């Protein structure tokens, strides 16, 4: 029995889906990975699903596979959209979760507690329009085209160095003054509050 399992269904492709309580996720994943007879040692994918029905909770979906048994399973965690979007990171179990969780964070704004380096991956670090794959995010972006162009033209060309890289350069002692300022301020994108709908 998977620890923290709430209910089970079967997907249309015949795969088992198990919903797990949010606070038992790591226990469940650890059990699935280490228990003999389960041995789901391979993380296929991590993603999230937000439904058009805003009342429905956002789901974080984990695709697991046992390479020995050639078996798959899908684990889901539900995050009520009224609640804080936080879930434990599974990076300690599968390092492949690193970029996958960063992408979910980048696209959905779900925070993975315990992730070693949670920052945006597909959008740039100072991107301030929000989380593109959320249903509240308009297809053409939150800012107007004029505003996007204005921001792009005014962008500091050095701003595409991440804070981590700036700190490496600062340790080397050859960082220009404006970049050192940026490092000191810890400048990142400011995510606007979603508009009241």
């Amino acid at each position, binding site marked *: 029995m998977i620890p923290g399992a709430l209910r089970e269904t079967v*997907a*249309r*492709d015949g*795969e088992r889906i198990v919903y797990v309580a949010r606070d038992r996720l790591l226990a469940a994943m650890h059990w699935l990975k280490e228990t003999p007879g389960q041995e789901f*040692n*391979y*993380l*296929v*994918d991590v*993603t999230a*699903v*937000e*439904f*058009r*029905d805003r009342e429905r909770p956002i789901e974080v*979906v984990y*695709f697991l596979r046992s*390479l020995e048994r*050639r078996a*798959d399973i*899908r684990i889901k965690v539900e995050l009520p959209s009224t609640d804080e979007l936080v879930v434990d990171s599974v990076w300690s179990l*599968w*390092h*492949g*979760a*690193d*970029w*996958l969780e960063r*992408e979910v964070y980048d*696209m959905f704004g779900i925070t993975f507690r315990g992730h070693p380096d949670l920052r*945006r*991956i*597909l*959008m*740039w670090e100072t991107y301030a329009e929000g989380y*593109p*794959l959320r249903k509240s*995010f308009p*297809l053409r972006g939150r800012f107007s085209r004029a505003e996007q162009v204005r921001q792009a033209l005014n962008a500091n060309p050095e701003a*595409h*160095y*991440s804070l*981590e*890289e700036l700190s*490496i*350069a600062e*340790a*080397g002692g050859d960082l220009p003054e404006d970049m050192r300022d940026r490092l000191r301020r810890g400048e990142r994108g400011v995510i606007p509050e979603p508009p009241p709908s």
Partner: protein
Amino acid sequence: MTKRTVELELATPGVDAQGRAARMPLKARAAEETAEPDLGAEHLLVNLGPQHPATHGVLRLVVELDGETVVRCIPHVGYLHSGFEKLGEYRHYNQIIPLTDRTDYLSPMSNNVGLALAAEKLMGIAITPRCTVLRVIACEMSRIISHMVWLGTTSIDLGAFTPFLWAFQQRERIYDLQEMWTGARLTTSLTRVGGLMADIPDRFVDKLREFTGDFPKTLDEIDRVLTRNAVWAGRTQGVGTLSAAEAITHSLSGPMLRASGVPYDVRKDKPYLGYETYDFDVVVGEHGDVYDRYLVRLEECYQSNRILQQALDRLPDGPINVDDPRVILPSKTRAMSDMEAMIFHFKQVMEGVKAPVGEAYVGIENPKGELGNYLVSDGTAKPVRWRIRPPSFINLSALPRMAEGHLLSDLIAINASVDIVMGEVDR
């Protein structure tokens, strides 16, 4: 044709007297590296890309160097981010297919098949036998062109120009076939939910047979030029090594996973399109270095060629589309003359094909690794969520782990060995 043998006094490191590429013991190599004197703590931050031919697209690597040794490698992706997954939520299932062309644009037909299979799984559609075999042909043609691009560009990265020309010549022949079949070389949009955009034209089978006959010769030539080449072996062996356990924990797939000695191939282990009925071998490496990835991809081309030949032998006659007017558009003449057909045509074009509530994930063995298409439907004609599991994105995430501790020039070899295509990494 007589086999040409080259007698050389090979005093080059990495090759033994018989001309076999001898493996350099990894331990000795590691000792060599640590024996280098430490020249102080002055590290250098180098920005590589996004416009750099050796990064295979708009990949940007920020590399912290100690002398020439990579201390830290921080990849930046997203320069080609197009929001395909978001766009997919605003499109009918058949309208998503052109988007898949543009993800992994080195194997467009294979991506088309992946999405169609996922949509069919979601809707519970069983495709016709002829369509199944034609899709296998499309997938294996894609594998060959993708591996040919990989071989060509990687050999250029490491200083061998000739294999590039040979590989691209063969790729051109497949592109001609793709053009014959779909009318496009790159944006093929081959599949439709429940079938294909078009049947293969006359002479396609003959031309493909001709290709499968000649193609192994080119592979043999590339094999002869590279596999025992001292420079090639020296630059690739023991570089970017990943053990099986590391490959698994980093979720690698495809040739990257198999080169590390994990025999997982979706075609064998979770078969789709009847791959279990074809006779082919899963190619598995041993050392998990750049050299083994090369060997795995080269051998996979031979195997794809075998599958193509078998598929051509068994290609059945019959329709390419399922007989279901709710899914497949009626022919133009019927839509213009038959009332019922016109209604179906109108409903499909205006409303799209509705999928039942539920979700489906289909992983297929793309040239780069496991391409997953995950579709979630709420009962309308547009998916709630379309997720691509991008193999080269996930394979690339292991790059820092592979590159750190190697030389900067090895970083180029390692990055090439991942076989990334930025259209798919960034989507």
